[in-house]
């Protein structure tokens, strides 16, 4: 039996995964993701696709909030930029979905970096208000710039095509979303084992020391906004292509708060935490709805107050989470792993 992990090369020591168990877990998860669509019905596929999009958006937000410590309430606005850019390019210029998605990512990255400029002067709550302003500004532009965005009316996006296959069905879109989610996760995990990622974390932990260690705060804060917004824009663009209808109501400040809840509940500053949070926040209302439906037959009175119970339960679960595990689901996952690593010896 091993008494520890011993690496004989620096390359192995710096790998993302170290033990066979970790690698095996990863393979099992990948097999599950690959097999899932063949067994799931349309309802579960829809949920899975929603989780996939939310994972990409949450990883993006986590880069900014969890890793770099720049709190942002502009998530909804940045997703709107991604969604509208992708939709407009596809509708008006006939771009294929992948090209419009890529352009949408880049445009959102630029917009994100622009709205990140106040972060050089503002921290914490003040920055939260500044990003809230950016959220409102973006939504205002979207609803008032009729000529381009169609104002408050919905945009209808044509179905995405890949190699002559329509990708808009839940089954086909599943592969698209989860491939991109996988790439996003890998790119982000890689980023945070290089000097750029360390610069982001350094800014979060101790910005003055970071600057004295040679980190250009302005450059790296804006870079963080840009990288984060790139993935947030991707989530927005995928929403547009998946739902095929883009309206501003999908990107209000509620979404910003919901995404913040995802990364706080999942675990700040971790890719895996973003995935956990996205899964949890997406599945919770769905589970509550199903629960309500099954209760309806036995307690007819539930039907009328169901929406209120759902909202209250949603809030309650989040509060309980913050009280009992402020470091999120990722911490619970770590605790479980630690428990079984020593199991059955508790010392």
């Amino acid at each position, binding site marked *: 039996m091993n008494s520890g992990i011993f690496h004989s090369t*620096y*390359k192995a*020591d*710096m790998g993302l995964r170290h033990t066979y168990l970790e690698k095996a877990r990863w393979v099992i998860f990948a097999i599950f993701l690959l097999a899932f669509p063949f067994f799931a019905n349309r309802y579960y596929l829809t949920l899975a696709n929603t989780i996939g999009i939310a994972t990409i958006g949450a990883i993006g937000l986590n880069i900014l909030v969890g890793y770099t410590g720049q709190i942002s309430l502009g998530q909804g606005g940045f997703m709107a930029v991604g969604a509208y850019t992708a939709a407009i390019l596809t509708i008006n210029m006939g771009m294929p979905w992948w090209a419009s998605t890529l352009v949408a990512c880049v445009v959102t990255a630029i917009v994100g970096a622009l709205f990140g400029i106040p972060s050089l002067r503002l921290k914490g709550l003040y920055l939260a208000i500044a990003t809230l302003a950016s959220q409102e500004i973006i939504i205002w532009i979207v609803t008032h710039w009729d000529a381009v965005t169609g104002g408050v009316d919905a945009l209808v996006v044509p179905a995405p095509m890949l190699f002559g296959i329509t990708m808009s069905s839940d089954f086909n879109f599943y592969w698209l979303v989860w491939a991109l989610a996988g790439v996003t996760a890998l*790119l*982000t995990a*890689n*980023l945070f*084992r*290089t*000097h*750029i*990622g*360390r*610069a982001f*974390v*350094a800014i*979060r*932990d*101790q910005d*003055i*020391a*970071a*600057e*004295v*260690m*040679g*980190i*250009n*705060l302005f450059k790296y804060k804006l*870079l963080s906004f840009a*990288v984060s917004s790139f993935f947030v824009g991707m989530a927005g663009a995928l929403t547009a292509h998946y739902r095929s209808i883009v309206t501003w109501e999908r990107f209000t400040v509620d979404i910003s708060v919901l995404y913040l809840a995802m990364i706080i509940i999942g675990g700040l*500053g971790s890719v895996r935490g973003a995935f956990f949070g996205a899964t949890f926040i997406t599945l919770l209302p769905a589970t509550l709805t199903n629960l309500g439906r099954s209760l309806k037959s036995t307690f007819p009175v539930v039907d009328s107050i169901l929406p209120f119970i759902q909202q209250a339960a949603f809030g309650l679960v989040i509060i309980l989470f913050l009280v009992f595990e402020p470091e999120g689901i990722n911490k619970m996952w770590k605790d479980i792993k630690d428990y079984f690593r020593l199991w059955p010896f508790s010392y």
Partner: protein
Amino acid sequence: MQRDFRHTLNSSPLNPGDLQLNVEHVRLGFGGVTALFDVSLSIYQSEIFAIIGPNGAGKTSLLNCISGLYHPQQGSITYHTGNAEHQITKLKPYEIAELGIARSFQNIELFRHMTVLDNIMAGAHVHMKAGLLSSMLYWGKTQREEIKFRRFAEDIIDLLEIQAIRDKQVGELAYGLQKRVELGRALAMKPAILLLDEPMAGMNAEEKEDMARFVLDVNEEHGVTIVLIEHDMGVIMDISDRIAVLNFGQKIGDGTPEEVSKNQDVVHAYLGEDEDANPVKQMNL
């Protein structure tokens, strides 16, 4: 170029004894308070230069001026790197860091949620060039660069004898070890000048001895110039080559430890008028 030392931890191309940093007539004020008043001093390659003075004398303010956190209203700070001289008075902290001036802080300002290893690697930031895209792909050149500096970080870990804690999160370490990691992070910059703000504050005798040994190692084996603020007179008199004394923002004396301990102004500033109570004399230094 002939030098007695050539090692990875020192990026200065100067020969020992060359003028490296020249502070001239620096005045720094905050509103009505003048923190530094016409301070001038010169620091030479490979010496240990101590700055002492009572609390509030402006020692940390002076270090902050050198590392760019404060910009003095008057005066200039010139930094020499062999073939060039840089006016660093108005530069930003990160630009000064890129020129090779590293520092540690009085109150530990480590990246608390990173491991010891990551803190040291973060210190080497200025030397790492990988771009955003290749970092995200972690391919080829980027990976080689990371591994190269991972190996380099191991040299620093060996030097500071912190092998056992390299994977620990810094926030959970004991105070003395955190101070050591902070020195390590500054060393990872391969500094030409290392500014240490009270590296031994709050330590017990044994920890102070260790820290003094590390500072001497860095200075003697690697030839790094060290500018040191410290309150422990025993340590200062033992390890420094030259000392500057600040009092109420003014420099009231400088020179070798013996000269300073005999300087009447210094003795007065520290001890008042009564010379018999001179603790420096009492310690038989």
